[in-house]
């Protein structure tokens, strides 16, 4: 994705992998909101980027004119090999109505606040253990802390053996890195992952217990249990949707606090602020941008859209729209009114949002309890993920004075 020339004008050739966008997309979006407000590109085979809350909201809620068949932008027009809507490769995220509701309804009870809130002590213990393992005056809060929390939580939820955590994390890397590989390559790369997951499923069929794997194996749609491929597909979706997203959110919050000692001091001294602060972290550093495909040629929001054009749904851009948020470009840690859309809008609202919030809150609470004062050790060493998930990766934090 790096062989494209640098973008000169994001209004006519936006590119979410352009180094300028990856480094600091916010001024670009602000400019687009004023000038366009729907930007166009010929890259990736052609697509549109609504930069306003109104544009993002209209498209997110419009399943008549847009499909979720492919939610990750590939190198060109969408592949014919991708399974068609309404089911798609990874239900419910790639599903359209009416099938979407069925696939979603089966997942939601496992991610509702009741079962998720019960995980809090486990997550707190996990964060404490990770912090215990960090050594030195400078720690890599991205690669040594934030990165490990979501996979360890999912591993526990699935009921896979604790000793397999390194193997499990390797598999996650295969899945995440394979997302935009051609289908045949993806199938080959996934084989060891699938074998491991199928072995775990077999083990759960022999010894059912109270975890997500047994839940998925036993849940019924219209009196029928799911096919093993559907269970595997759902597990892969949870890995794809739940790991680098939450890792990015935790990393961004730590990055912010490292740069803003005033906000850090307030959180340390006023822990009751945490729930409101979490929503502002999610608004200001929303990590997830999703794609849609245009279903048919049409005039929409003043643009001549063509069938199979990409739409990049910038939830993070919507969150900075000054017509919706007062002082949209300011991080206000106790912002009381915050209708942010970090978890999307409409029928695809993040099914894991309760879990994501819990992980983010506990990860930050435990981090600032351990390190009430910290700062970036080397701002130039911080790196940001490119593509549709945004968050810090290398994040060196000085936790003790040198």
């Amino acid at each position, binding site marked *: 994705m790096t062989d494209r020339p640098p973008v000169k004008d994001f209004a006519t050739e936006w590119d979410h992998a352009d180094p300028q966008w990856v480094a600091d997309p916010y001024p670009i979006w602000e400019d687009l909101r004023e000038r366009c407000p729907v930007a166009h590109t010929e890259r990736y085979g052609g697509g549109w980027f609504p930069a306003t809350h109104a544009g993002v909201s209209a498209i997110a809620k419009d399943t008549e004119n847009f499909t979720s068949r492919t939610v990750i932008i590939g190198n060109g027009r969408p592949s014919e090999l991708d399974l068609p809507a309404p089911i798609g490769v990874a239900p419910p995220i790639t599903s359209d109505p009416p099938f979407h509701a069925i696939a979603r309804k089966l997942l939601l*009870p496992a991610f509702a*606040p009741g079962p998720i809130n019960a995980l809090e002590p486990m997550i707190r213990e996990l964060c404490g253990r990770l912090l215990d393992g960090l050594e030195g005056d400078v720690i890599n809060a991205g690669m040594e802390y934030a990165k490990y929390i979501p996979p360890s939580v999912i591993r526990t939820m699935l009921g896979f053996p604790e000793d397999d955590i390194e193997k499990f994390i390797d598999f996650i890397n295969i899945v995440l890195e394979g997302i935009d590989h051609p289908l045949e390559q993806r199938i080959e790369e996934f084989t060891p992952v699938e074998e491991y997951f199928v072995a775990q499923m077999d083990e759960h069929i022999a010894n059912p217990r109270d975890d997500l794997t047994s839940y998925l194996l036993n849940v019924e749609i219209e009196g029928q249990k799911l096919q093993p491929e559907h269970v595997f597909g759902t597990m892969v979706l949870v890995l794809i949707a739940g790991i680098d997203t939450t890792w990015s959110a935790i990393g961004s919050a730590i990055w912010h606090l490292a740069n803003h000692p005033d906000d850090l001091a307030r959180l340390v001294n006023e822990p009751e602020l945490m*729930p409101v602060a979490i*929503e502002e972290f999610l608004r200001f550093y929303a990590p997830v941008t999703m794609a849609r495909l245009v279903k048919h040629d049409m005039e929409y929001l003043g643009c001549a859209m063509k069938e199979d054009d990409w739409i990049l749904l910038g939830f993070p851009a919507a969150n900075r729209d000054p017509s919706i948020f007062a002082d949209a470009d300011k991080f206000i840690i106790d912002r*009381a*009114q915050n*209708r942010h859309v970090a978890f999307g809008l409409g029928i695809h*609202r993040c099914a894991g*949002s*309760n879990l994501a919030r819990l992980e983010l809150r506990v990860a930050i609470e435990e981090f600032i309890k351990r390190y009430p004062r910290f700062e970036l050790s080397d701002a130039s060493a911080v790196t940001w993920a490119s593509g549709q998930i945004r968050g810090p990766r290398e994040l060196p934090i000085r936790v003790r004075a040198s």
Partner: protein
Amino acid sequence: MKVSIDPALCQGQGRCFSIAPAIFDFDDLGNGVVIGDGTLNAESVALARLAQSNCPEHAIFIEES
């Protein structure tokens, strides 16, 4: 005054029941539901309005009386 959630608009964003757990609860799918018949008293009105102003889906309605 009475508060209600339009189930056709609610997507389970989860803001109302975390902001005002005395007024809102969640169902098995994680969607928001109003506790009781939604009648608000002098104290709960402000909280209900705060929850309303945080709902990304604009699914909360307050009926003046």
